Structure formats: C-alpha cells, structure tokens
C-alpha cells in the first residue's frame, strides 16, 4: 500500500533533484561556452534565464543591466538561477524542495537518501556565497551535481524496486524530458542559422550537447559533426541516451507498467513519444524548432497531469473504492 500523498512527495523529490542537477550543469557549461566564443560573439545570458523557466515571466528585471540596455549581466543572471531567494526554481530552492518532499516521504525511502539530501541542501545553503566568483562557483556546482548523482546512486543501490521507487524514477525522467526540450528551446533562436556560413555553429551545438552531458555520448554514437540535424536527432530521438526525450519517455512508460490503473498516464506518454519519434529533425534544424518544442513540452505536461489526476489527487468520486481490505 502506498499513500497517494507519499507517492506525490516522492515524485516531486525526483523532479526537484533532477532540476537541481540539470540546472547546475547548464550553468557550468554556459560559463565555459561563454569563454570559448570571441569577444563580441556573446552567447548571451538570457538563455540561462530562459532555461531556468523565468524569461518572460512578467518580471523581466532579473539580472538585467540597470542602464536600460536590457543586457543580462553574468553575475546577476547566475545568482538568480543558482540561489536568488525570489526564484522558486533556483538550484538552491530545488534542493530545498527536494528535501522538504523527502522529509514527508521518509517512511517510504531509505534513511540514507534523506540524510544525503538534507546534507547536500545544508552544504549548498551554507556555501552559497561561493557562487559569486567563477572559481567558487565551479566548486559549488560540482558539489551539487555530484551530490544529486550520489543520491540517485543510493536510491538505485538500496531502494526496493517498488511503487515508491517508480514514482521517484518517473519524476526524474519527466523532469529530464522537460529540461531537454527547454534547453533546446532556449537556444533555438541562436541555433538556427542566421547566415549561410556561421563559423561558430558547431560551438553552439556543442554547448547544447555539453549542457545535457551529451557531448561524449553523441561523439560515440554519431559519426557526424555536432550540427543541427544530427544533434537534434540525438537529443530528441536517441533511445539509449538517458537525457534524450524519447529515452526519458520510454523510461516513464516502463515505470508506469509497475503501477496500478495506469491507462491514462500511459496513453499520454505514448502520444508524447509518437510526436517525438515522428519529428522531421533535418527540417526542424532549419526552421520551426520552437513551435515543435512547444508541442513536445505540452505533451510532456499532459503526462504529468494524467499522473497527478490518476494517483495523487483525483476527485473523491473518481476513486475506485476497493473492497474492505483483506
């Protein structure tokens, strides 16, 4: 028996841990990529805010220059994405939310998982001032990424493959799918060629791959240079790379098979997977990427909603009343 509330907490702890790890990695890679480009060819810090899901949220002032130019300053943007108290999806806020959810879910998860998450949140919070310099930031981000992976490792090594574990895995995979689409989306304006011969096109695609920890796997899997069609095919449709959207969705689907009463979420997941596998990647590398990604994002949101209404908070009337417990 798994309580609906426990399932929901576990699911969200999976999502938040993934969000913290992925966002940390994106910031790290963005800083590196910035340094690879010649002066003047700024990768820009707006994409960082877009990836963090905050661009165009009505409060456009975060991290923008006070001179009215609207340019985003590195320090402010990074601070906002990592630990600004007013940003509810900052890395630090994600760790805190993961911790709060695991606290609730403690009866259903191994004790070490809770302790590791609590420790990571505490250390990240205590050392948040480190993020103001590039040096310190590298250390801080590394700790977050390693800490999140450590927690995933403890889970994989000590948690029974029960329903609770399935909800954690589903949360993590859905968050991954969403982040991959968001990374692509945030860069789509930059990625699609403005001119015939852009010498930095490969650098930009490499940055995309790197921020998803995909560069090396891409190199091993694809003979092509990291450019449009090949990269898109890899990040959207590769079934073996764990951060590719279709791989995330097939993880979700196989976890859903472990759960009771799963038709609606499974259908939503199939719909999303079909959309992704049918993507005309070569054409999308040239145009229409943003509209397509928006459709994928919405399809992923549908999966989340189906899970929520099936398992976490269905209206009382919809609960199948089980026979008095045997």
């Amino acid at each position, binding site marked *: *028996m*798994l309580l609906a509330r426990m399932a929901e907490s576990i699911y969200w702890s999976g999502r938040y841990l993934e969000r913290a790890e992925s966002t940390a990695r994106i910031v790290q890679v963005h800083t590196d990529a910035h340094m690879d480009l010649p002066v003047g060819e700024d990768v820009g810090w707006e994409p960082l805010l877009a990836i963090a899901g905050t661009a165009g949220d009505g409060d456009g002032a975060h991290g923008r220059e006070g001179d009215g130019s609207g340019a985003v300053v590195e320090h402010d943007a990074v601070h906002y994405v990592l630990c600004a108290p007013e940003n509810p999806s900052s890395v630090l806020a994600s760790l805190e939310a993961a911790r709060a959810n695991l606290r609730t879910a403690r009866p259903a998860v191994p004790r070490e998982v809770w302790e590791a998450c609590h420790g990571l949140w505490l250390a990240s919070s205590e050392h948040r001032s480190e993020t103001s310099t590039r040096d310190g930031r590298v250390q801080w981000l590394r700790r977050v990424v390693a800490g999140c992976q450590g927690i995933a490792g403890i889970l994989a090594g000590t948690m029974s493959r029960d329903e609770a574990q399935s909800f954690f895995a589903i949360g993590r995979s859905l968050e991954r799918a969403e982040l991959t689409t968001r990374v692509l989306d945030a860069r789509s304006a930059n990625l699609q060629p403005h001119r015939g011969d852009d010498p930095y096109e490969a650098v930009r695609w490499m940055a995309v791959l790197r921020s998803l920890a995909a560069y090396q796997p891409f190199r091993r899997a694809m003979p092509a240079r990291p450019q449009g069609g090949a990269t898109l095919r890899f990040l959207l449709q590769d079934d073996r790379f764990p951060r590719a959207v279709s791989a995330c969705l097939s993880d979700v689907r196989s976890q859903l098979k472990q*759960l009771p009463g799963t038709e609606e979420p499974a259908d939503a997941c199939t719909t999303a997977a079909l959309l992704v596998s049918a993507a005309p990647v070569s054409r999308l590398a040239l145009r229409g990427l943003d509209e397509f990604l928006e459709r994928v994002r919405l399809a992923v949101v549908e999966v989340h909603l189906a899970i929520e209404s099936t398992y976490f908070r269905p209206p009382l009337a919809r*609960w199948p*009343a*089980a026979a*008095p*417990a045997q």
Partner: protein
Amino acid sequence: MGGRTGTGMPAVTAAGEVPPAWPSYDPDPFFDEMVGPGGAPRPEAAPLWNLFASLGPQALAERQRAADREIRSIGVTFTVYDGTEGVDRPWPFDIIPRVLPAPVWHDIEIGLVQRLNALNLFIDDVYHDQRAVDAGVVPAALVTGSPNFRPECVGVDPAGGIWAHICGSDLVRDGDGVFYVLEDNLRVPSGMSYLLENRLVAKHVFPELFRHYSVEPVDPFVGRLAGLLASVSPTPGDPTVVVLTPGVYNAAYAEHAFLAQQLGVELVEGGDMAVLDDGCLYVRTIEGLVRVDVVYRRVDDLFLDPEVFRSDSLLGVPGLMRAWRAGRVSLVNAPGAGVADDKGIYAFVPDLIRFFLDEEPLLPNVPTYRCGDPVALRSVLADLGHLVAKPTDGSGGSGIVVGTQATPAELADLADRISADPDRWVAQPVVPLSTAPTLCAGEVAPRHVDLRPFTLMGPEGAYVTRGGLTRVALASGALVVNSSRGGGSKDTWVVDPIADDGRSAPAAGPGAPA
C-alpha cells in the same frame, strides 16, 4: 568465584568490600536508585556498580561518545522549535542504566493494570449511566464540567468497553523508595519509541553487561501494541490499521514515524483520509480508496473532526466521529478518554478503584489537596511555599508552580489566582524525587528521575512495558525531566534476581544476597 574476574569485573578486595565506583558520589538525602544507605550498591545494581568501578572516567566518557554516535546514526531525534520550523535534535541519553528488581516491578505492573482497569470502567460510566457521580464518588462538576468531557461520546460503546487503550503513567519514587503515581496520561501519551530505542543503544554500548544480567526485554511491546490494535477492529479478517499524525512539524513526529514503521502500517495525515457516504473511513492510496478499520491516532481530540470539534482543524477528517460513533472504525485511544486524566479527577482515582473494582489501590497516589474544598483551600494557601500547585486542566507541565522554587512575588500571584478560581487547582506536597547516577560533564553525579511505563489494555487483556522510560533532570537539583526542557533519559532494566543466580555474582561479597 575468583575465576570470574576474567570477565573484566574487578576483584573483590581482601576485606570483601566492593570498591567504590565513584568515591564522591553522594545522593543524600534522596533515595538513590543504585546506591543504598551507607554508600554500598543495592544488590540488584551491584554488577553494574562493579563495571563502573573498573571503568575510569575516560572509558566512561568514551562509552558516552559511542552512545551519542549510535543515537545519531540510527537517527533517534526529538523536535524542538526555534521559531519557524522544528529542528531535529539527537535524543539525550545517559549511558548509566537504572535497575529495578523484578519483584518490585511486578507489584507496579499489577498496580498499573488495576488502575487502568478502573479508569476505563470510570470513562465508560461517565458516558453512560454516571453511577460514580450518582453514588457521590466524584462530584458531577468535575466530570461534565471538565474541558476533557466530550458530550459527543455519550452512549458510544467502543469494543470491549475500553476507551483508554494506551496509558503512559508518570511514576515517582519518594524518599522512602515507595513508588507513587503522579499522573495518568490517557489521551495521546508519547515516549514509547524512546523506551525501545534506549534499549537498542544500551545493548550496543554495554554488550558485556547483558551477558551478566538477565534484563527483561522491552521489544515485545511492539507486538502487543499491534495485537491490541488488531483486536479492536470492527470488521473480521486482517484489519487495515494506520497511525494518524498531525504531520512533520509535530514535536513527536519522529516517534509517529518510528511506530508506524515498527508496526508495519501506514503513517497518515488527516488529508489522506475521507469518510464516504457509506459512513466508513477510507485512505487514499495509489490504488484507490482502502477502507481503514483502526486508527491509532496521535492527534488531540479537538482536532480529530472539524464537523464536530474545531472547525478550523486541518489535521483531522470530516465525519470521523460519525464513523466512530457508528462503530465503523475504532479510534485508539477513544475520544473523550481524557476526562479521566484530569488533575481534578486524579485525587479520586483511589476511590474509583474501590468503587468499580471493590479492591484497595495497589499503587498510592501522591496526596492531593483539592482547592475547591474550602478546608483544603485554607491549608493550601497557608503552605503554598512547600507545595506544588497544578491547574486541573493543564497537560504536560503547563501551568505548574513548584512552591519551593518560586519567588515571594510569584507565590503571592499564585495565591490570588487560586483564590479566584479554586475549583481549577489542586496542590500536592513536593515529592523528593529519587536520584540515579548520571554522567554530567565528565563526572558522575546524582540527578532526579521519574519513570514512564506504558500500559496497554484491550478486550483480550492487558500488558505493561517491562520497566519504562526513565527521564532525568540534567541540572543539579532540578525536578523537571521533560526533554523539551533539557531533560535526558536512561535505559531502565527490570532484572530478575532468580534468573541471575550465579551469572551476576562475580563481585558479590559477604553480606550481599545470593
């Protein structure tokens, strides 16, 4: 016998005297749990005394550190509040156990069962015929006027007529070594998880002692509790039992989670459950609604059901009282049980035992003056400086004034408050609590202790924990033992001198019992 020194116990001196473990240890004038008059260890504590005599201060400190590490690693915590969010603190544990001989414990055990039996008969009577009131055993005002009397419970028949299934009693030991009942906690008593975990830690810290002593085990409590919960189920077959907690911010949440885990049942919050049109209680699981038969609730009466009690409560379940009254779910303890643990009723418990059981009480009460009685009121006001004054409706330690530790201004204020509303107050002599050797800042010193055993009562019988949770006031001279106020705890050993024969004898010299 000399060969037994090989166990690590110190040799008996040529004169046959037991070497003092702590030369400067002096509990006088209090009754000490380990040391008898004249400074020799009590017979049941002698092996323990000898072990400590052989351990220097450094070894003792090392054992304490080992215990602290153990407590952190198994995660025994309690929650304190620092303004916003509760913070989990490691549970304070003193490594020197308290030892009680089995025959002494046996008397306490039957006394506690007798008492809880009478209290349950009384509660059932309160919500039915009120014979005790009619016969003049207790004043009606103390019953129906009590803030813990629940009109909603009138006429309800819980399984077996039992309302208070779990009682946490507070026992204290006077200067003469006699145990007194200081309080009966019949609502949502806490502390049983610490009792169980203290034993676990003690076993890891002093494994050798468990070879020399036959200490009665405490873990059967969990099985007994599980059996009790199942036995009150309204439906046949394997019942669904849940533990209802107010949530993670409750001070006892760690205990709620521990008990749910030990019992192998779900830990639920009010929002997880609903009462449907069929009048039954259901819990929301990922597989749908599952009917709940028994709720071991750790939520106070007034928060249980917003339809009946506090309408702003988010901790309970709307309709829960309906389901309970209709007999579709059992609540442990039953709502309304608190009517019998009121400090005003306390004074009458010996009379209730005589009335309902036709027996003499086996465990004495601390003498209690009811300020509502004009004669008693006069002597209380004349002697406030030597008494403890308690509001009748307070729980825990709230509102209690210890006369010997109050300033003249506080005493004057107290006298005014008692005179203004004498029915709300009782007064008791200050009990000179017994002491036990306790490790304080590297030194072993006498500290005051109390004892909280737990009694279970169901239709199929009663059970008392072997020993209980010993709470210790860590400040010198202090009488307040609550962990939230800097109190510590000790493992409590009930040892059987017969079963110990020979095994615990290494250091017994002439004059010690066989």
